[in-house]
């Protein structure tokens, strides 16, 4: 039995093929592209909002994408408990739609940053992380606006509800400023919504899921999602 990954393609998405490749070729599940002008999710079990520069990100990252027809369906899907993973630009879009709280600011350095970073897995009890055995993951970031910001009250709530899933850290798991690449509050690299079915993360797990590239720490996220869905399908 295969589950179906639906990968949304906005004009300007550029990590769509990468996510598709991981779903289809690395973990051998079904995978379809979902065109932004459509509103049919084609029976997808999980939706990925991929990285890139949707609509050029000329206004504000993710700000235009939220108005595309496909997003109406994605929001409904998420509201009904469907699993949604937003990576990089996808995370930014999730913030714009309000599916996740907070906003993105430009990186503190004001520069685009592409490099491998270490992530402390802060919460392993999510459907995105429950099959991850490591405490620290090495996964690349590639963004100009990944400086996560929210007011103190929101940050407190995120902490109280265990919504912070990944934090930038040292290889040993220290989550200090020194290991924060972009200035994000609480070193936040990824958060889930209260229900735990929507994850937004700035690092790119699809870029560290292929042994050919000598990086495989991201694959656990796809495995967790897949296993969770499969076990639910069996229960039903």
């Amino acid at each position: 039995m295969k589950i179906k990954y639906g990968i949304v393609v906005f004009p300007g998405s550029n990590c769509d093929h990468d996510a598709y490749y991981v779903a289809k070729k690395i973990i051998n599940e079904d995978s379809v592209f979902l065109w932004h002008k459509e509103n049919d999710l084609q029976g997808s079990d999980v939706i990925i909002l991929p990285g890139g520069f949707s609509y050029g990100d000329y206004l504000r990252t993710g700000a235009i994408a939220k108005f595309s027809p496909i997003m109406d369906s994605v929001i409904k899907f998420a509201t009904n408990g469907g699993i949604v993973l937003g990576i990089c630009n996808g995370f930014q879009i999730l913030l714009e739609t309000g599916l996740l709280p907070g906003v993105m600011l430009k990186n503190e350095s004001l520069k685009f940053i592409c490099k491998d970073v270490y992530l402390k897995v802060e919460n392993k009890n999510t459907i995105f992380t429950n099959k991850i055995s490591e405490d620290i993951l090495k996964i690349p970031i590639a963004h100009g606006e990944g400086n996560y910001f929210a007011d103190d009250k929101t940050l407190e709530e995120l902490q109280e509800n265990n919504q912070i899933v990944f934090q930038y850290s040292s290889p040993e798991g220290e989550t200090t400023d020194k290991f924060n690449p972009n200035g994000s509050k609480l070193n936040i690299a990824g958060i889930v919504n209260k229900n735990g079915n929507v994850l937004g993360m700035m690092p790119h797990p699809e870029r560290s899921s292929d042994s050919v590239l000598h990086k495989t720490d991201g694959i656990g996220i796809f495995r967790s999602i897949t296993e969770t869905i499969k076990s639910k399908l069996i229960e039903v």
Partner: protein
Amino acid sequence: MKEPEVTLELALEHGLTEEEFEEIKKRLGRIPNYTELGVYSVMWSEHCSYKNSIALLKTLPREGEKLLVGAGEENAGLIDIGDGLAIAFKIESHNHPSAVEPYQGAATGVGGILRDIFTMGARPIAALNSLRFGELDDPRTRFLFEGVVKGIADYGNCFGVPTVAGEVYFDNSYKGNPLINAMAVGIARTDRTASAVAKGENNPVMIVGSSTGRDGIHGATFASEEISEKSEAKRPSVQVGDPFTEKLLLEATLEIIKKDLIVGIQDMGAAGISCSTSEMSEKGNSGMIVDLDKVPLRESGMSAYEIMLSESQERMLVVGKKGKEEEIINVFEKWDLHCEIIGEVINDDRLRVSQAGEMKADLSAFDLVLGGGAPVYHRETKKPDYIDQVHKFDFSALPESENIEEVFEKIFSSPNVASKRWVYEQYDSMVRTNTIVGPGSDAAVVRIKENGKAIAMKTDCNGRYVYLNPRRGTEIAVAESARNVVCSGGLPLGVTNCLNFGNPYKPEVYWTFKEAIEGMGSACRVFETPVTGGNVSFYNESPDTSVFPTPVIGMVGLVEDLSHVTTANFKKEGDLIFLLGEDFEEMGGSEYLKVVHNLVSGDAPNIDLEKEKELQRLLLKAIRSGIIQSAHDISEGGILTAVAESCISDAENTIGAEINIPVKNREDYSFFSESQSRVIVSVSKENEEKLFNIFNGSPIKVEKLGITGGKTLKINDKFSFPLEKLLNLYFNTIPERMND
């Protein structure tokens, strides 16, 4: 609006010579009108016509069994890599625009070269760039450097192509006139490539992509003159890039090619509609009628002259198949792009352009273009006086450096040698998940998902060597780029080149150009790497300086098996370190001479091309046999720099070394000599004999230098450098200089 009267003065203002203006009148049998003059002036500009270079370029080796299209025949070179696949690649300069407007100048340089790749039907898989600036203590240089890097980053990152390799050099000669060369590599199915041709009477001519504005008018002419105080006023000649639209254009273009809806397609770069219409027509022995009223415009009231000369970015000219118009338009509409039919192909060598029912230009396409009727000049050459002067430099007269540690630290932290991480971390080097080896090693290696192989690629040129000895310096540029590809596990396949020189009308400049071309030709023949195309950029001069002649070589190679992929850094403790090749204490043009004595003098290092080829052949054999743990070529900074880089280039997994560097005559010279055809490799102990066996009987010397391990680099039992210190020198120099 009344058009200016066309006179000799006006022609001269357009950059044409008196002879050229006479020739135009003779060919037309009349005086050209204003629009026609504009079209001629851009098409016969150096930038479009290659009038002062094409005769020499034709002497380069441009054939090979794997070459699918020859140099200059299409938008980019195309090499067969087997399995029904081909790689398209090309390098191009955007020097002048970047000198006045670094961000947009560099960004549109990237945009232009990417379009050249995908108009071949190839999906871009990698971008590279080769950059030259003045010295970082100059604030304007820092402004240019910062802007150029950001321009390249923003365009490539948004477009979604990984920027994987390149080089950055700093030298005062580039101060007023930085060199910004962008290269792109793409992959195509051999049965699905496209051509830049217009043929078939009545086939529709379509303009697609962005609308046409007044930006970039006379960009090609601007690129064909020296930079001066007046250049600042040419800022409006710089185009503005829109990587988002380009990304859409990429997807739409590949879709119409895949669906077999078109006859031909060409990017609109320099000289915009003028160039694409005339070149495509000439190539198909056809002509075109074009109605400018159909061209989507950004602003009203644009004259025919302005529309024909606009260099607005992210546009393409498409010749569709008759009857497929609607399908083509549907594809572009899907991607929210303009697609307008603006004319049709005719069976007659005429470019007939009308606006508001009036004929604005009626010209022979053949007469306008390179390879057709554009002028071809053989310029005068004269060996510059400085060459003999610098060759006389007496190295034995220089005092021997006593404090080797201090000298090495200076060299290792010089911006030319130090890590360019500050630059490449701003580039998305990983998108498309094929980057096996990214920036910071010898050549980059990008996997081909379609066949499980990989492409190795690199640009190289040491401008100092070329300045001191144009012929040999260019041979070295070819040799080094090939060596880098081999060090990464690839077999060099072909070359693209970007020739950055001064004013070709100066005989001394032209002599260096001619020598460089001849050097490139001889080296490419030896390495069997045909020249698939490229770009010539003359007039790289500013009131202060004339750039070092800088013929940048972009080399691509094929990695047959991913297990062959090799990187520069040491892999484990206890491996043996070997030097392949031999030192001759050659200090001419070295980083040592520059950093320690502030001199660029002497002669470029010697290079024996046959010996170099043998080194590369045997090294590749050793890599393919699986015994090579790391391979790193020795270049700027010499052997000590190369070994130190192998210790720390993977900053998270540093491994020290204890080595003995043989000293010929002088310690300083032996440590910092830049003799060619040398590579540092490491192998595990049990493979020592295998390594010797592979090189046994060859003219390539193999010398054991020492062993890897620990957290220091120890040299000759005398000098010792903690890796922490080396890391700091190597990785923090440029960031520190940029935060000044």
